[in-house]
């Protein structure tokens, strides 16, 4: 396991921790947002906040694609699934996401044919196999999954598969970050940028954050040392009065992203004027829809969807958690009415959701810390 030790070495972590502490200005508090749910997971699992001075707080961002799907879109998908001859398909993560009328699982119990697929290509395969059915793929995710949907549509078009369509719910990360920067709720000092999204979009799209808003952003890997290193790079920028985009995860993320993937997305999809995010409300130009040229593959055009807006349950504070205003355990229903088994809010559904990550690892880690310091 020498490979892994390289990213997990406790001595290295302590050394970074000391370097970070040495950069703290007395009397100043720092707040950094980790945009991606994968980072949230690492932070809780390894108790990384214990390696940071108390004046540095890490807050979670909106980077959990399942978490940001609004209830109304789940209801729309279930409505499509209930139409004659329809097979609805989506990723497993989607199955338990609550809508106003229940989840996909509930709809399945009611007779709808909703199937989990690993890849949109598997959904296309179902369409080929069952030519008499109308197969719809509920596409969700940020820029990491949008290229897969786009390539699958291109493949369907090339093969002339006519009974396949996409219910497009792809969202884009940049407008969400901008909405958070513009929100008066939260003052941030910098961002730990998402790793896998950046393999697609590259690092350039973040430059407005550094230039326009004066906040540093460091694209980070998912290992504990990656995240500590990124916090160190953020602190160094602040100490030196810089605000730049840096790529800590250059071993995976190319500065220019994946041009071929971006081209495929741009061929098939275009920006929506606006889209509702669960908890964050309507954000302009923050999601993708199918282009007119691919109308034949657009479930939104093929089916008459209700498109109703459904308010989140009153008790649920996912919105505040997604914006980083609340920590998971500060939500009124966390761990009591809302658990991974019976989630009220989306942040508890996905393993990348901040609440599920904290529920699964946070308590364990805190207990471990207490034991270690006893």
């Amino acid at each position, binding site marked *: 396991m020498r490979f892994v030790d390289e990213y997990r070495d406790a001595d290295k972590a302590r050394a970074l921790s000391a370097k970070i502490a040495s950069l703290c200005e007395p009397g100043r508090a720092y707040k950094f947002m980790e945009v991606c749910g994968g980072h949230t997971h690492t932070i809780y699992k390894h108790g990384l906040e214990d390696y940071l001075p108390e004046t540095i707080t890490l807050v979670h961002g909106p980077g959990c*694609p*399942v978490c940001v799907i609004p209830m109304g879109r789940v209801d729309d998908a279930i409505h499509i699934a209930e139409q004659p001859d329809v097979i609805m398909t989506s990723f497993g993560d989607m199955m338990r996401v609550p809508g106003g009328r229940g989840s996909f699982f509930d709809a399945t119990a009611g007779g709808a044919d909703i199937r*989990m697929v*690993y890849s949109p290509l598997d959904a296309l395969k179902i369409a080929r196999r069952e030519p008499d059915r109308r197969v719809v793929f509920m596409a969700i995710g940020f820029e990491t999954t949008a290229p897969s949907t786009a390539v699958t549509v291109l493949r369907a078009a090339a093969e002339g598969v006519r009974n396949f369509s996409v219910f497009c719910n792809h969202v884009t990360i940049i407008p969400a970050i901008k909405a958070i920067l513009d929100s008066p709720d939260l003052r941030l000092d910098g961002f730990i940028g998402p790793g*896998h999204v950046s393999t697609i979009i590259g690092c350039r799209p973040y430059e407005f954050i550094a230039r326009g808003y004066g906040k540093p952003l460091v694209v980070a890997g998912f290992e504990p040392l990656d995240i500590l290193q990124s916090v160190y790079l953020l602190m160094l920028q602040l100490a030196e009065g810089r605000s730049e985009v840096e790529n800590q995860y250059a071993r995976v*993320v190319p500065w220019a992203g*994946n041009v*071929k993937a971006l081209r495929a997305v741009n061929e098939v999809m275009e920006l929506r004027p606006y889209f509702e995010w669960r908890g964050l409300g309507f954000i302009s130009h923050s999601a993708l829809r199918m282009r007119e040229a691919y109308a034949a593959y657009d479930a939104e055009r093929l089916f008459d969807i209700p498109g109703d807006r459904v308010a989140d349950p009153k008790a649920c504070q996912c919105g505040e958690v997604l914006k980083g205003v609340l920590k998971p355990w500060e939500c009124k229903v966390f761990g009591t009415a809302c658990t991974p088994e019976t989630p009220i809010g989306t942040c508890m559904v996905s393993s*990348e959701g901040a609440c599920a990550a904290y529920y699964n690892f946070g308590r364990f880690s805190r207990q471990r810390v207490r034991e270690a310091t006893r």
Partner: protein
Amino acid sequence: MCLGIPGEIVEIPPDQTDLAKVDVSGVRRAVNIGLLDGQPLRPGDWVLIHVGFALSKIDEAEARAALEFLEGIGQAYEDELRALRDSSIDRP
């Protein structure tokens, strides 16, 4: 779904240019490699896979670290592997 999973290329079928067979924690399935244009792949190379598509080529050290991270996640990775096991995009 959102996290990339590392797979080792075990076979590149000559007749299906966009597909490669990968091994992910012992599960062998076909994935699409069409988005890695200009980066020649050979058996033994590692890629980061999102929902059936290889999106970046990575080195072995990164792959091992990523695997360890995913195995530590537990249920979510098991669900991902189960989904991958049910996937068969290379067969009609």
